[in-house]
């Protein structure tokens, strides 16, 4: 799971795009707010009918603006500038004909479309593009003023509006550019940090597997040597060799990188469990299994391995520490999970008082099952036995067992 912080390039792109939306909104507001000014000013001059065309042109620019927002393509923005140029020129000429004195005192009224044209510069995805569009919009609006001057025979007076807007736009984009520059220097690279965390997590996972494997092989074998009779029988020697081969191979160190294709008829998990129980029965622990049936449930290879190893560790605990000679193993199957309960009626223990240096349950059961997304619950108290319940997720159910919740390990 990554950190809830966006990589800087993603955040910068979203922010620049948002500023573009902001420009469209201000442009639209400028055009809309221009309409009542046109209406009142022409009405005061007794030329209300002359407001129809300018207002229509403002509406045309609004529609064009809406189209650009809808399409959001470069050609649409260019088309808006072209339409805007024509509309702005026609707007100013129409008003100048109706209100000849407005060129001296009411430039604000005349340059509303020109201001909206400059705001098209905010349709950008990067600060550099934003600057380019702003300058282009300003050039188009200024060109419109020149054409009006030429056709209308009036002085060139673009007013301060377009200039102020282009200054604000350029300031906004330069600020944004500066912010993004600072970010590149100061902000941690989240993706690099996540990659480093992955590497460390992988290393920790490998260390965990090694600890569990060494505990279950070397440590147990040394314990056998300490407590065995002077002569080891063939089976005990074979077990020692098997454990040493496991250590030499160290396959668990690259197990997670393997992609295992599971055969539907694969019964390796069941066979592993049966072999495990047979081994414990031979060592003097009677294992009673309940919950078997004819269902077929598939587990991820890593989960199956963890489950068998954890089951082995649980039975090892019964054999070595409980004092009991019988262990009950119950298999409970549900569509999403398999649960294995290992219970004994031995001496039990107080889980809260287990010393921090005891590895058996922590490394061999808890950590193994947790590492594959499962859960472990332990109930025990001195004198009343122990129950260990391990639950792991199922990948798929090929065939459900008849008896609900009590199905065969497949």
């Amino acid at each position, binding site marked *: 799971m990554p950190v809830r912080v966006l990589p800087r390039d993603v955040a910068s792109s979203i922010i620049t795009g948002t500023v573009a939306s902001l420009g469209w909104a201000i442009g639209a507001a400028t055009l809309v707010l221009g309409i*009542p000014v046109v209406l009142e000013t022409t009405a005061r001059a007794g030329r209300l009918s002359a407001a129809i065309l300018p207002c229509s042109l403002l509406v045309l620019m609004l529609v064009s603006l809406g189209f650009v927002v809808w399409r959001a393509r470069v050609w649409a923005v260019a088309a808006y500038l072209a339409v805007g140029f024509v509309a702005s020129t026609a707007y100013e000429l129409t008003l100048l004909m109706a209100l000849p004195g407005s060129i001296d005192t*009411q430039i604000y009224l005349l340059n509303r479309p020109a201001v909206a044209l400059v705001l098209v510069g905010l349709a950008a995805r990067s600060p550099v593009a934003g600057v380019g569009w702003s300058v282009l919009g300003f050039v188009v609006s200024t060109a419109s003023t020149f054409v009006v001057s030429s056709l209308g025979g009036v002085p060139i007076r673009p007013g301060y509006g377009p200039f102020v807007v282009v200054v604000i736009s350029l300031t906004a984009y330069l600020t944004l550019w500066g912010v993004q520059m600072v970010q590149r220097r100061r902000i941690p690279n989240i993706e690099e940090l996540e990659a480093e965390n992955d590497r460390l997590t992988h290393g920790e996972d*490998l260390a965990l597997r*090694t600890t569990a494997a060494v505990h279950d092989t070397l440590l147990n074998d040394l314990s056998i040597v300490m407590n065995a009779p002077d002569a080891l029988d063939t089976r005990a020697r074979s077990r020692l060799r098997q454990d040493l081969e496991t250590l030499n191979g160290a396959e668990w160190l690259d197990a997670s990188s393997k992609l295992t294709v599971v055969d539907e008829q694969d019964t390796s998990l069941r066979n592993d469990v049966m072999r495990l129980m047979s081994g414990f029965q031979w060592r003097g622990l009677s294992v009673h299994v309940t919950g078997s049936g004819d269902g077929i449930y598939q587990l991820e290879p890593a989960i199956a391995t963890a489950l068998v190893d954890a089951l082995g560790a649980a039975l090892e605990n019964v054999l070595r520490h409980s004092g009991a000679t019988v262990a009950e193993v119950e298999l409970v199957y549900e569509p999403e999970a398999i649960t294995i309960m290992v219970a004994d009626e031995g001496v039990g223990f107080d889980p809260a008082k287990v010393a921090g240096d005891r590895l058996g349950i922590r490394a061999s059961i808890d950590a193994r099952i947790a590492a594959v997304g499962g859960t472990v619950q332990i109930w025990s108290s001195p004198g009343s036995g122990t129950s260990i319940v391990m639950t792991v997720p199922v990948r798929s159910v090929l065939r459900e067992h008849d008896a609900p919740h009590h199905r065969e390990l497949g």
Partner: protein
Amino acid sequence: MARGSSAVSAQQLDPLTWFTGRVVPLVFAGLVVLYGAFRVPTWLTSPLPLLQPIGVVLCAGACVLVYLLTRPLRRQLGWAGGIATVLIAGAGVIVSSIGYSGVNISIELWWAPFGFALAIASLAPYLSARRVLVLGGISTVIVTVLAFWFVDADITVWGPLSSMVIIASPMVCGLLAAVTFSLVLVRRMTPVIEQRSRMVLPLETTDATAEQVERLRLARLSARAVPFLVGIADTGRITPTDRALAGSLARRLRDDLVTQSNLTWLDSIAEDSRLVVIDPEHRAARMRPPQRIALRSLLRAVLDTPGADSSSLLIELRGRPDGATAVGISMDIDLPEGRRIMHLAPYYLTLRTEVDDMTWDATSLSFTSP
């Protein structure tokens, strides 16, 4: 995200951008001063010319206030900060309109509504769209009406409706810009962040270096026991000396395994630094990957800080009755506050997105890992 786009601020979603982007209100303050200065000739036409610079200072001051209230270690800007900002900027407009009362000015070039608009816009990254709309909407209406009341009698070029629209236009545009910015940014950013937080990072399963390191560790752990057990398996005989040696090897092996099992990811940092880790309950192992990434990067940044006494860096993790983990970090960094903040704040802000109840001062940092 449970809350709608209008209820979350851009800063809440993306604190890192607005840490580096906190200069924005200062830029706006600069624009206010620049535009106000551009209209200095009109100040002199007023019977009370001093009111204009006072108004400029108030409007620019409102932007500066936003800058000060949003410094990295402060809490999120709330209603109080927003109200203070619009009150100061609004006062600037009113003061300016009183100054221009009785003067025939070009209201379309009046700097004050423009200054108010920039003050509202400076709130955009730090307040939710809803709050900006409420604060900006109400204040725009009130300021427009009051300003119109003071200056309208002297305006001859425009009709009353046009005057009001012209006065309100910059403020409406500023408000619209702020609301649009906050709303659109949050709406666009939220799904990206949520998608990212749901993403499962591919685990490095082919890290040959890590596997090699682990194989070496395994070789070290088993160096003495394996040859011993091979001999036992070959002969099938166990002598009292073998039993004693097996016991000795088992004890040593067990100690090594316990030591390894007790190590957490924090200890891996401590191994190659002078970080002191106090984590008797192994609480570090319970932290989620994003919390680890954020905390690890902060600790690395502290260790890399020039002037930091790396031997003073201590982290302590303790369980709380509610199951959460309380984390405390103490450090001794001999840097001026400004430089310390600039260096560490990005890491602090990253960590703050992943933990609760975070506090930070010059020598310590604490938070709760839920």
